[in-house]
């Protein structure tokens, strides 16, 4: 009795000591973040590197042996409320940090899949996420795990205990704000955007001190709003976005102009720029706001030190189709004509893929990555769309009754590509783009702004463009604009992509399959049914000499909520909430 009790205590204290030793050796540093794309034993950034290439230099897993990939554990998020799981996990020192629907975060032993801790934010009932209660991931810094909640707060948790270190309100959820994107950490600053473009919010990018939660700067993404930096507790004006109100907006419309920064951003250390995309202008009814409506549907290069806008590139000026410009801008070296250009590429909701010079935002080239675009004939030499006649839904003021002329537009408002991130492989020099082929009927209606209410002034319904497939995973060549290969999927693709030096491309499908493809040919090499739809983004890392791959699974996101006639394809997909982890066992790696 005596000895047993003592023995137990001894074992427990020894374990506690061992844990605290390994903890002291750990903690994510600025260097860890900057080098994430090159280090294989951890994944500490959303995007597997701040530039967002989602490329791993690991080649243990290859086209030869990926068939031998084996599931090693599955971890359930639990709870009755499941919904879409769009999170990308992070891994550091053998611990996985992953967020889930309803603003939950988990720390999991990456070897065994056992839970270390769980944090459930207590959310008010009045949260207003437009497009499902998702979260896309956490940020790691020092001993903290930081994420954004559906009631628009940032929460920093202790990485070992899951206890709250600080909490900070970023914006008013009752006005329609929320946070769904993973924050990023750049030069010791925590950078976040906000969601809420369907509620007439004003988009912004903000920097916080990751150690304390104190705000450092704020940059509104709608022309006319003042930016600020905070020094020694003082709020100092730092210039109006766009110089002055009213240049590209009529009247007071800029005051509720949308341009939500809801997908977060990437960072390029070579040009020291944050790249954030901005969402649709509000309201959707474009006849209420003639003008380019800056900086909606744009990519912004932002100075991480004070939030100043260095340059902008607007993909859809005067958007009338909900073509948000939030999609991630991925930095890469464009090698052509014997030169290496500091370029960046993005696949837009509007169906065009853009290659920009990331030093100054100059347009290099743009090309469709979907089969059909109805709203524009093409792009001019500056990358500005050449609108088709009658491609825009009609002005309700021109018609009897409330509803303007209905037009059929392609892509649908859910986009040629939506939030799900692309990947770039420097070996194949190709981008891998998860895209969808669908159109919509769209019409405009009168609308006026009311706090916390949907601010659309539009109606719509989505239709698949083909009978037998909607989703298309494409390999796009940024030099030629040509599609090199494609994989067609019955349901719309809604999960992110990863590529590796093993000449592989990974992604998941709403049907529940985790898949691997040959990066050069698009040949499908592996699939595994995870039991629920995949709308998450895979990662890979090395542990104990073996290559691991993980993905969150759990059907949901915007498609089942907004997909219109797509419902007939997806209605039988069941919800879930699981992290699946696979590995290539050591003895299956061919000796090289």
């Amino acid at each position, binding site marked *: 009795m005596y000895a047993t009790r003592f023995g137990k205590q001894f074992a427990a204290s*020894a374990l506690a000591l061992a844990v605290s030793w390994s903890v002291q050796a750990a903690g994510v540093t600025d260097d860890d973040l900057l080098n994430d794309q090159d280090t294989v034993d951890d994944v500490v950034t959303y995007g597997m590197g701040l530039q967002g290439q989602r490329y791993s230099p690991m080649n243990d897993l290859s086209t030869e042996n990926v068939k031998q990939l084996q599931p090693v554990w599955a971890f359930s998020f639990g709870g009755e409320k499941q919904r879409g799981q769009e999170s990308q996990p992070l891994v550091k020192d053998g611990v996985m940090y992953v967020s889930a629907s309803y603003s939950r975060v988990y720390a999991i032993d990456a070897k065994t899949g056992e839970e270390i801790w769980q944090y459930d934010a*207590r959310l*008010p*009932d*009045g949260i207003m996420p437009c497009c499902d209660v998702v979260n896309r991931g956490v940020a790691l810094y020092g001993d903290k795990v930081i994420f954004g909640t559906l009631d628009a707060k940032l929460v920093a948790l202790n990485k070992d205990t899951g206890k709250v270190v600080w909490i900070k309100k970023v914006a008013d959820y009752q006005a329609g704000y929320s946070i769904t994107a993973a924050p990023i950490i750049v030069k010791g600053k925590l950078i976040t955007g906000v969601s809420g473009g369907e509620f007439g919010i004003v988009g912004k990018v903000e920097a916080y001190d990751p150690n304390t939660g104190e705000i450092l700067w704020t940059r509104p993404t709608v022309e006319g709003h003042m930016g600020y930096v905070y020094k020694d507790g003082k709020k100092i004006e730092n210039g109006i976005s766009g110089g002055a109100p009213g240049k590209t907006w009529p009247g007071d419309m800029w005051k509720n102009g949308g341009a939500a920064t809801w997908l977060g951003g990437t960072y390029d250390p070579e040009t020291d720029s944050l790249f954030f995309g901005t969402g649709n202008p509000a309201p959707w009814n474009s006849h209420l706001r003639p003008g380019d409506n800056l900086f909606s549907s744009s990519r912004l290069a932002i100075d991480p030190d004070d939030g100043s806008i260095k340059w902008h590139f607007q993909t859809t000026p005067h958007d009338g189709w909900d073509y948000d410009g939030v999609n991630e801008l991925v930095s890469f070296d464009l090698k052509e004509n014997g030169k290496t250009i500091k370029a960046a590429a993005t696949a837009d909701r509007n169906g065009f893929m853009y290659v920009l010079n990331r030093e100054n935002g100059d347009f290099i080239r743009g090309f469709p990555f979907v089969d059909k675009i109805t709203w524009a004939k093409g792009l001019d030499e500056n990358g500005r769309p050449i609108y088709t006649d009658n491609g825009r839904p009609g002005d309700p003021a021109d018609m009897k009754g409330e509803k303007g002329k209905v037009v059929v537009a392609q892509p649908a408002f859910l986009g040629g590509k939506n939030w799900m991130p692309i990947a770039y492989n420097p070996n194949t020099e190709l981008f891998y783009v998860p895209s969808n082929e669908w159109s919509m009927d769209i019409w405009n209606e009168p609308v006026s702004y009311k706090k916390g209410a949907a601010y659309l002034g539009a109606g719509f319904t989505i239709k698949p463009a083909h009978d037998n497939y909607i989703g298309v995973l494409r390999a796009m060549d940024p030099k030629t604009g040509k599609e090199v290969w494609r994989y067609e999927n019955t349901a719309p693709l809604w999960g992110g992509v990863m590529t590796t030096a093993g000449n592989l491309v990974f992604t998941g499908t709403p049907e529940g399959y985790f898949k691997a493809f040959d990066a050069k040919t698009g040949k499908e090499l592996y699939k595994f049914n995870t039991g629920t739809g995949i709308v998450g983004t895979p990662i890979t890392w090395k542990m104990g000499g073996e290559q691991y791959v993980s993905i969150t699974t759990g059907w949901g996101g915007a498609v089942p909520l907004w997909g219109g006639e797509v419902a007939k394809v997806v209605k039988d997909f069941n919800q879930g909430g699981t992290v699946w982890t696979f590995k290539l066992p050591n003895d299956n790696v061919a000796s090289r």
Partner: protein
Amino acid sequence: MLRHALLLAGALASTGLAAYPKDPYGSPMWDYNLERYLGEKAEVVLDDRVNLEVPPFAEDSSQVPLTVDLSGFDTPVQKVITWVDLNPIPHLFTYVPQTRVTVVSLNFRVQQATTVRAAVQDESGVWHVGSAHVDAAGGGCTAPSQASSDPNWEEHFGQIRGGAFSPANQSRLKVYVRHPMDSGMVGNIPAFHIETLEIRDTAGGQDEPLLKMTLSESAAENPMFVFELPDAPPQYEVWMRDNNGNQFQRQVGEAL
């Protein structure tokens, strides 16, 4: 590490365990909870000066008032720990005072009829334990909070009322805060409760709070705290923090 362990084992073998006194209420959890909260080597005595007041029967199992009256305990106190023997998480609160605290009162949840304990550690390290028994229909720990069925709960969340009263030259502090205090034991309602409370001397340059309290899941929704602090300064601040990181603050004292 190993050497240290062996030494410790030797020490234990030579002195043996301090035996706990017999529980006047005969609770099956007596030894277990004493060991869990006070340690297996704790020196424990029963002491009538640790006076617990609870209603004989809990009308509302989710709101049972407990008063720990230490006005008869006239020697300095290091620490006070309270627990509810038969609750799923028995611990209610622990506090460390830097000033004399004669009364602490707080509502708690009760899962079934149970004994309630308060252990007061004196300067020599000895624990003085007082007990009381509350009869109850039960279920208070696993019933959903009222706030969890109110879609507008956040509108009142964190509202805090408090004031100092001085009956018969004592400083009596009452603080009430609107908080669901969800225990985490109700399906699909995550734990959401106040973990820490501090009473801080705002005028004096004292670093340590006058009182530092940690709370567990047994504390009731919308907690009402009462403290009697005979030697309290004229002005002080009550500060609380919940497990979601929300902070609540209230200035108390003459200047108001």
